[in-house]
């Protein structure tokens, strides 16, 4: 059995093409869907934010005033201020398509965009 065959490249390219294709399908299907932002603290839902108000404002979650979120008028949301050392949450940038998420793990806060019609709350599980 060989380690590598030249035809393997074709298969790899095909897999990557499928991945790219699916990503575009996702982008397409997620566009224009009504969404809301859900904020979790240690896997518990603590706040649901509407993103379709067309207003710009900052807010924080109770008890975590060092972390500031910003809702943009275009319907996106982002971490804008945090006391964590790495700022991964802020660097994640604006989120607005369902399925997207950003997290500030030092503070235990996770921001997740979910479709509005999705009434099934995430199960309260620790994985």
């Amino acid at each position: 059995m060989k380690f590598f065959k030249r035809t393997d490249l074709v298969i790899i390219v095909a897999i990557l093409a499928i991945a790219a294709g699916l990503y575009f399908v996702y982008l397409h299907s997620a566009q224009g869907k009504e969404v809301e932002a859900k904020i979790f603290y240690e896997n518990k839902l603590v706040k649901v934010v509407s993103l379709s108000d067309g207003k710009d404002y900052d807010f924080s979650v109770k008890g975590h005033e060092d972390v500031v979120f910003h809702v943009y008028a275009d319907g996106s949301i982002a971490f804008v201020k945090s006391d964590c050392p790495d700022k991964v949450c802020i660097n994640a940038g604006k989120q607005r398509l369902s399925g997207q998420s950003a997290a500030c793990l030092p503070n235990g806060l996770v921001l997740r965009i979910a479709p509005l019609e999705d009434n099934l709350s995430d199960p309260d599980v620790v994985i």
Partner: protein
Amino acid sequence: MSRTQRLVIVSLFFAVALIISVVENSLPPVPGTIPGVKFGFSNIAVMYVLFFVGKKEAYAVAVLKSVFVFSTRGVIAAFLSLSGGLLSITIMVLLLLIFRDRISYLILSICGAVFHNIGQLIAVSLVYSNFYLLYYFPVLLVAGVVAGVATATLLKIIMPVFKRFRFSNK
């Protein structure tokens, strides 16, 4: 390979799988991924058992690994680990049956890693609501290819050593 040799090698690989799994879990989660879904580098050890020892032993290591995950990270993580592991081995066994020597280790590793992720994704979709699937699927496909290439590269380094110690009869 004698029974004792077999037992020792499988145990060693199981130990390696656990170590990789622990190290992987102590790393900070990659932002934007599903909690619990791992790129599955510990699956590398399971793949080697399949390549060097046999099907039954590979399944055994995958199941034992899930038992370990169950005792350390809980039932859902164990369920994810088990579904990823079993699907991955089954696909690799099928590929080996169909293509025999015509398939390369690289493609086997990639398929193993990709289906490990797909197995976990199926498990996640049973636990969470279905919606996130489409978003994560491309990510996991690419992650699977990366992990597969890493596995095959490692294998290429390790194989000569194995041959020298007569661990492998291939």
